């Protein structure tokens, strides 16, 4: 065990996977000489050389297309998109090629696309988007969203070894804000497994990514001030969803609050709410509630950003309303 930040855990996982498997390589903007916009790949170029750490042209379509081609012929590329917002420039490569090649030609596309996702960094509307819902709809892609350093490492290793294209949603807000114990060496978190971060009998709070931490704080407040025990379920993987874990959490509590940083409309929370309504209706003791960002782009001004994005006090309020129902 060692104590690492979220981004150190990611770097470590990539480093170990590159040491383990020569077919793994990195491609992205400024990832080599500069070490990456967030320094996730600092020192990689010096150690692994130019052929395995490729400073690309400024074109997400070219980066993702090249990586998909390499994956089809047996390589295992890890793509870094500088800010997740920019992935829309490579959208067609992802949804038309990465997601469908396996179905059309029976060829695996083992690649990872790293997406520094979300806000809380005073980054404004072009550097704070939550992008998961854009891809959630497409069959053929996997989506993971770790919330802790250990999961960041374990899921990165699982993503690199997976034969499907995996979109790896990294919370850039958490990069250097949280530290945690990370197991050394071979530590793989299976894709598709959620994690109960806190047990409880009153409300199931289902979340992922950055809001896991706000949710745990809010659950603590409810336990101390209201005597309400909130179960916090960290999804960790968004596709495929750990449906059993979600349904078990709802059955154990009877009430569900779904929290994500992404805005509510068209967000993943709606899909989870539908799953619960469909499969756990007899267990519901309250309406299924969702909490996410307001339906606007993430603003620049700090007070406005705080107003738009979910936070601990908003979650506390939503939990209290649900507890009182």
């Amino acid at each position: 065990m060692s104590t690492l930040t979220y981004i150190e855990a990611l770097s470590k996982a990539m480093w170990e996977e590159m040491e383990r498997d020569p077919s793994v390589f990195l491609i992205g903007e400024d990832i080599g000489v500069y070490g990456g916009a967030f320094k996730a790949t600092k020192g990689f170029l010096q150690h692994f050389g130019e052929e395995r750490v490729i400073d690309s042209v400024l074109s997400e379509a070219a980066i993702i297309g090249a990586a998909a081609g390499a994956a089809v012929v047996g390589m295992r590329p890890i793509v870094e998109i500088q800010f997740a917002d920019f992935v829309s420039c490579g959208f067609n490569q992802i949804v038309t090629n990465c997601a469908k090649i396996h179905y059309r030609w029976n060829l695996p596309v083992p690649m990872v696309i790293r997406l520094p996702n979300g806000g809380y960094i005073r980054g404004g509307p072009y550097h704070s988007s939550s992008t998961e819902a854009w891809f959630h709809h497409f069959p053929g892609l996997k989506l993971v969203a770790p919330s802790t350093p250990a999961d960041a490492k374990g899921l990165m290793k699982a993503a690199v070894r997976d034969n499907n294209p995996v979109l790896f949603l990294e919370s850039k807000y958490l990069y250097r804000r949280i530290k945690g114990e990370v197991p050394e060496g071979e530590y793989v978190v299976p894709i598709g497994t959620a994690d109960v971060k806190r047990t409880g009998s009153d409300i199931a709070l289902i979340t992922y990514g950055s809001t896991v931490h706000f949710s745990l704080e809010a659950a603590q407040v409810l336990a101390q001030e209201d005597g309400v025990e909130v179960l916090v379920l960290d999804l960790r993987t968004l596709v495929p969803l750990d449906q059993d874990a979600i349904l078990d959490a709802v059955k154990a509590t009877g009430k569900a609050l779904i929290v994500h940083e992404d805005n509510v409309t068209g967000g993943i929370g709606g899909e989870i709410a539908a799953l619960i309504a469909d499969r756990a209706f007899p267990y519901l003791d309250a309406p299924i509630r969702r909490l996410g960002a307001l339906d606007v782009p993430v603003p620049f001004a700090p007070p406005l950003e705080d107003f738009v994005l979910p936070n601990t006090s908003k979650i506390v309020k939503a939990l209290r309303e649900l507890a009182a129902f």
Partner: protein
Amino acid sequence: MARVEVVMPQMGESIAEGTIIKWHKKIGDVVKKDETLLEISTDKVDSEIPSPASGRLVEIVVQEQQTVPVRTVIAYLETEAAATVEQPAAPTPPPAQPRPTEAPASAAPPVVKPLAAPASGRFYSPLVLNIAREEGISMQELESVPGTGEGGRVSKKDILAYVAAKKAGTIAAPTPAAAPAPSVAHAAKVPAPPSVLQAGKPVEVPELRAKYPAPQHEIIQMSNVLQKMAEHMVKSVHTSPHVAAIHEVDMTRIVQHRQANAAAFEAREGFKLTYTPYIVQAVVKAIKKYPLINTSIEGDKIIKKNYINLGIAVASENGLIVPVIKNAEEKNFLGLARAVNDLAVRTRTKKLTPDDITGGTFTISNYGVFGTLIGTPIINQPQVAILGTGAIKKRVVVVDDMIAIRSMAFFTMSFDHRIVDGALGGMFLEEVVKELEEFDPSMTF
């Protein structure tokens, strides 16, 4: 087989006849004592009539829409009790064999079947219904479980606590009488829609049909209540020269007091604290100061009433009903709140008697529940005035030469200018406003 007579009940001292609106049971149906058997309408109010005994409905003498004098036999029940009495007393009577034609209610095996619909209109979540079913709790019993959730809802915790207490033997077998009165909160928050068109039955009248062809037109029978309302309104407008005075009232103190006390009040009393008792209390005090408001006119004589019977106009699904708080001058705030809630609940559950809606000396009409700001209500004869209360809204007003946000409402006093002039009407209204605006926020219940 002994037959039990069902008669047209006398619903009030002055009631001579009643019309059957609807039989809730058909011939052959099994009915329990006190279960709703039929619905009747008198010229004052519609009521649900409970069955006088448990048994089977074997004959309906008076059909729907027919009107008969009180005490007339309208149906016959055949009681189970009578059936066992007929058999000679055996040392150990065998358990009654379910008869093939018997309704499944008593013969049904304990299979999972949906619970009956709640009579109170209380909401039960899927989980609560599921637990009730698994624990063998009937809807009737469920209705008696106290709820601590939103609006008195029975939450998962409540039903689990009830089940645990029942298993521990701390709860006796429930009786219908133990059921607390359903909270009026729902009725107060969501007033019954004025479904005048739904209240009556479609009818065919050839002479009207010639003028108003189908399907562009529907012809609907006005209910008794509706016809009486129409008559009464026309008569009132013809009788009294109506004058309306409108006053603005700052309800901020009342709003704050209600907010601060709502939760504790509801926990203790079992129903929601509304604005109505505050207004009723203010009106009672104002009437005591200006008793000429509490009068009626007979020819050239004024009849001054030394008691205050306050009518509260309520929109029910069958039309306008004005239940009356009797001797409101004798009641304190809590007494008024309980009386208002009792009338609201019984209006909604159709348990009002004609005596509940007669004898009023002054009326309050709260059209504010519909969001109406200002209205001009029609006097409820033979009274001489009526107070209309508009919706409470936050507005910017000037207080001590400063701009302030206050919870404001418009109150309208409609009065009969034969006896109440603008001075008296205005002074009375100002007194009501003063009582509300100068309300003592330290008042406890």
